[in-house]
């Protein structure tokens, strides 16, 4: 128990030193750490994909696999607590006063742009900075289920791309993605109060 506690203290220190979300409170970190710990069945301080897949509701979520993948950095199979926190930091609510604190540390992880970038990356699996028609079709198929025909999905996908596409490359780039969602209140939608 003591070991776990001191671990969280060191992690807290690390986080405060290395990351710009230093405004995260101690209680939040401990809460998330205990969650991390409860997910970590192998007790090795890192989560693997199977650990995530054990979460029941995540299995029925259409985007479950992609979300799990988002936690793991490129090519790795294990995520430690730092990576876990880093991914979750995208979902902190946006606070106005944070902008004034750290002008030279770049954009915080939970800014509107970074939130949208996170969502964009969930679409764009091949990381070519574009959502192609196929990628869109895959996502649609996952969200819609098996009852809808391919043609209908195809027409929806075409319509979607046509609406968003401004430079005519038949795919949605990140700037087009941002533009399409400019009326949506992303700051509220993509924030979890838990991390507040």
């Amino acid at each position, binding site marked *: 128990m003591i070991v776990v506690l001191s671990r969280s203290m060191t992690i807290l220190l690390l986080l405060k030193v290395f990351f710009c979300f230093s405004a995260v409170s101690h209680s939040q970190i401990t809460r998330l750490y205990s969650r991390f710990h409860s997910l970590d069945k192998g007790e090795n301080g890192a989560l693997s994909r199977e650990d995530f897949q054990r979460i029941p509701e995540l299995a029925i979520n259409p985007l479950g696999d992609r979300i799990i993948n988002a936690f793991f950095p490129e090519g790795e199979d294990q995520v430690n607590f730092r990576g876990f926190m880093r991914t979750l930091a995208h979902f902190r609510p946006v606070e106005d006063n944070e902008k004034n604190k750290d002008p030279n540390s770049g954009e915080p992880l939970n800014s509107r742009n970074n939130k949208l970038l996170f969502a964009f990356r969930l679409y764009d699996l091949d990381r070519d900075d574009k959502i192609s028609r196929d990628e869109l079709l895959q996502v649609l198929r996952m969200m819609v289920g098996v009852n809808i025909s391919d*043609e209908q999905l195809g027409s929806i996908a075409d319509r979607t791309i*046509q609406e968003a596409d401004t430079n005519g490359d038949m795919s949605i780039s990140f700037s087009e993605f941002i533009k399409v969602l400019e009326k949506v209140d992303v700051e509220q939608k993509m924030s979890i109060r838990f991390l507040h």
Partner: protein
Amino acid sequence: MTARTRFCGGLLRISRALRTVALSLVTGCVFSVHASFGAVHGDNDTSHSSGHGTHTKTHNTTYPATRAFPVLTVNYDHVRKPFEISLWILLASLMKLGFHYIPRVSSVVPESCVLIVVGLLVGGLIRLLGETLPVLDTQLFFLCLLPPIILDAGYFLPTRPFTENLGTILVFAVVGTVWNSFFIGVVLYGVCQIEGEQLAAVDLLACLLFGSIASAVDPVAVLAVFEEIHINELLHILVFGESLLNDAVTVVLYHLFEEFASEGQVTVVDACLGMVCFFVVAFGGILVGTVFGLVAAVTSRFTAHSRVIEPLFVFLYSYMAYLSAEVFHLSGIMALIACGVVMRPYVEANISHKSYTTVKNVLKMWSSVSETLIFIFLGVSTVAGPHSWNWAFVIITIFLCLISRVMGVVGLTFIINKFRMVKLTGKDQFIVAYGGLRGAIAFSLAFLLPSDHFPMKNMFLTAIITLIFFTVFVQGMTIRPLVDLLAVKKKKQTKFTINEEIHSQFINHMLSGIENVCGHYGHHHWRDKLSRFNKYYVKKWLIAGERSQEPQLISFYNKLELKQALLVAESGSAANIGPGLSSAALLSAQSQKQRTVMKNISKEREEEIRKILRANLQKTRQRLHSYNRHTLVLEEEDEWSTVQLRRQRVELEKRMTHYLTVSASGWDSPPVRRARFQSDSQEYMAKPSAPVSIPAINMELVSAPPGSLALLEEVTDQAQQSQDEGCGMHANSHEEKSMKPNVTFALELEKQKLSRCLSDPGPNKIEVEAEEKEHFLS
């Protein structure tokens, strides 16, 4: 425009407006005067009339022999009530019309103010003429005038922002209203005691009752004013939601204090029972509404064979929900809202599109008329009196209402902001506080007070009316410039894009996944659970047929397409069809090419093309009668017109399916070609047929036995198909040259539709004709 013409134009407009206003006023007054006049004399006529008769003839029983047979008689009493009601509604509607013709007024003054003024004028006129004034009968108000407005609001309530802000709305509605009532009541009591004299008679409970009446934000007034200022969605839903939900509180407090005031004393038990009563009223109302909503949804499942009465079910069930709730003194407004919200997704999935339009338009019409009538009657009732003006009381009331509202909003926001993700700024708080308008509900509740228990009822009434006038006039008129001054965010022009829908759903799924990872049961988690419950259990029972399996995204998409297809049909001109289509991907690349191909055609060519088309079409009609299979020689023109005929028929068939798959957004003509072309090709693509090369077809055509038209038909069909297939095949090669014939072929198909519409057929026609002849006769 010169100053003179502008002056004349303005003068004309003003005179027209004045004429309308004057005419309607006079009509209204004359007839209502006549009505009341007729009432007096009506008694004399009753003895002579019986049964139903027109006013030209009446059945007479016995008549003295000396009297001549009455050719024309007047029996006004007969139709008096409906006549008067219709006249009032007519007056209200004419006012609404006339309002928009007065140029300056409509932009400065909100409609509700003008209507109250009109009511005052009409009331004044009627009083001048010495007749009895119709007062805003409470029963009439609560049972006939209020439900349509609330149903309209509830049915079209934007559920997403409402549920997202539900906590805030509830806090404002419940805690805010209670705070307001108590603050106003207690301080008013204190003032009355200090003031002494006539006010000393007002006891604490009466003051509290008055406080509860005066504190309720009115949905009608809020709607009327906020509709016009187009404020952003969050603020709109906050104020509006508060005005709807505080009905429960108002009902409870009103009945509570009324009971206590007549009893004369209050015990702790009573106070506790009061709190329990609140929960009963609120949740009871919601329960009643939900039950009726579900029954309505189930009923709508079976209406496939009698589509005409579908809207009636929506209205009846909602109204029954309202009345049932009122029977038990539950909150009728909450019942109505709950019914509308519960009913809507299932009913809309079941009823036909026409019924949906009917429901929407009737609700809007009814609520609009109701609102107008309410404001006019408010004006008339003001003139009717009876008034008892007390300077101190009235001024203090207004002052207190403002202060308590501001304090309440600021205090509550401070607490609420700790729990909100998007905080409410000072500007938001100001608008919420300033937008707390009082209206006719307060008036009616005050009117309902039994005057034996409340000797100061008239004073209350006067104070409430003054409060209403103050909030509607002063706050209503100034809120618009204030909104502009403070640069409050306005409502963004929402065009329902499929992008937003898809990405929003995507984000929702993502967020619920993240919440699961965190182990946090938040907003998304519960929403997900609800929608899953809905999908697996509820939809099966409540939605007819296959649509119960349809995912939300698909129904959204279908609705969008249907809406735009109908837009096309209504506008009547094919030129409105835009690029957003349900087309196969393989042709979308082609569309890019076509856009460049079809740009540069001059006007003279267009004229020539149009002339040729019209001529040919006429010839076709002649042909219809005179063809003979033995004379079917493939001349140039004959071939042309028969092919046209063929295509016309095919086009007609495809039209039905087109209107289900074509979507529109208003753009210029080149995309029109593409639209038709793509959807045609899609049709053809579906039919499996071996691709035949063009030269081969030509030979076939020539060698065909000069005979059955059917064969010709088949051949030409095949020709068309292969053309299309050819187009499809060529699409991938992206060759501009091979595009040309395909393009022209498309234009071919286009022509008929366009020429039939007698609209601008667009470019490229002459080339079409030339190429066409080439194809078939080479």
